[in-house]
């Protein structure tokens, strides 16, 4: 068989081996590379912390002995929806800014990837909550997020109000102290006026005295502030 006899097999095996090694190494590399990429994407820190409300709801839902009554599950689902409202607001607010930053190259690609994963997750989460709500009561799914958003708002209002009202005792205390200070100063001033009308006269004639001797200036400086403060007091005491 002439063609096979004429072939030098050893010489031919070299290019084949070359091709095999080349393709083989490229495949191995691309496999490894892709796996590592996927691993890093998965290992990126999640955008949001663990969803505590969701965990509570699902734990209660799966509790068998004793079974958790429906009313509690509804309350837990409402809490879960409220937390979802917070999250969706965060995602919406962050999106615009993040897009701009990404275009300018101010933030890395992995941040964007994390964000997109969070967005997808929150969509899933919303769908899940609506389904659960519909399972409890027909059409609750259409209103649960309205209720939840009002709940979030209401909680915010009460928090702010409590914060402001908490300053009331301190303010009151400050004003009481200040008022007694003012009135005592005012009384002192009255007494002083009675005792030595000349001294106060000298003090109130401040601008004229300023050009006088050093002695005068010292008196003026000592008397000045109290007299001024006293004047302010007089107004307040009248009210």
């Amino acid at each position, binding site marked *: 068989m002439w063609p096979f006899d004429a072939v030098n097999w050893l010489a031919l095996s070299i290019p084949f081996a070359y091709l095999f090694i080349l393709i083989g190494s490229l495949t191995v590399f691309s496999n490894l590379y892709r796996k590592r990429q996927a691993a890093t994407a998965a290992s990126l820190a*999640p*955008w*949001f*912390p*663990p*969803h*505590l*409300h*969701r*965990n*509570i709801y699902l*734990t*209660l839902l*799966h*509790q068998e002995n*004793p079974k*958790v*009554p*429906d*009313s*509690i599950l*509804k*309350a*837990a689902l*409402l*809490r879960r929806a409220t937390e979802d409202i917070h999250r969706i607001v965060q995602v919406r607010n962050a999106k615009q800014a993040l897009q701009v930053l990404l275009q300018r190259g101010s933030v890395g690609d992995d941040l964007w990837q994390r964000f997109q994963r*969070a967005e997808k*997750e929150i969509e*899933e*989460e919303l769908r*899940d909550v609506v389904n659960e*709500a519909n399972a*409890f*009561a*027909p059409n609750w799914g259409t*209103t649960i997020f309205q*209720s*939840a958003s*009002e*709940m979030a*708002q*209401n*909680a*915010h*209002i*009460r928090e*702010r*109000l409590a914060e*402001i*009202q908490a*300053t*009331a005792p301190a*303010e*009151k205390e*400050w*004003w*009481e102290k*200040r008022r007694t200070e003012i009135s005592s100063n005012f009384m002192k001033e009255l007494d002083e006026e009675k005792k030595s009308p000349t001294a106060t006269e000298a003090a109130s004639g401040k601008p004229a005295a300023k050009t006088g001797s050093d002695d005068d200036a010292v008196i003026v400086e000592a008397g000045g502030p109290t007299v001024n403060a006293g004047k302010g007091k007089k107004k*307040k005491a009248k*009210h």
Partner: protein
Amino acid sequence: MESPDTFTLLPLQIDPQTKAITATGTASNALTTELQILNTLHRSLLSVDTATGTPPPPVPVNPKRSAAISKLRESGNAEFRKHQYPSAVRMYSLAIDMALGRPAWEPSGLVREEVSGLLSNRAQAHMSMQNWAEGAVDAEASVEMKKVGNAKGWWRRGKCLFEMGRLEEAEVWVKQGLEFEATEQDLLQLKGEIEKRKGK
């Protein structure tokens, strides 16, 4: 967050009598506070009188509470006109508590509106008793609840600060107020007064 198919099992248990949820073992702070909120929500949810036991949609509002609040406000106003300021303050405080006690799923805009008006009235009652500090705090809260269209609230805190001699703060406050209510005569007048006092 975990993937959609999994969740973290938490050590929870239910009290068979009170139906309250508690955590077993050592629980984190966040979990205990959350469970408290959940239990309060559960109790308020039990009083809902819809057929399904779910909170009704935000609108329409249950008119009973609104009526009670406006009645309390009316009696507060009546006391105020009779110069019975302490009892007016009491009436307004009751009304405020009532308004804040609305179930959490009722419209928050309504709560803002009511509470802002009531706080503003209470501030006025405090001011009539020359309790400037309380008046200032109430007026600030009122403005926080409703910034636009609340010229009286702005003016009242400005006036209180002015009376307490905190001219710098009063000036800043009134300026802020004028950004919302540029044409309000009272505010403009107060601004003039503050400037006059500062110039002295």
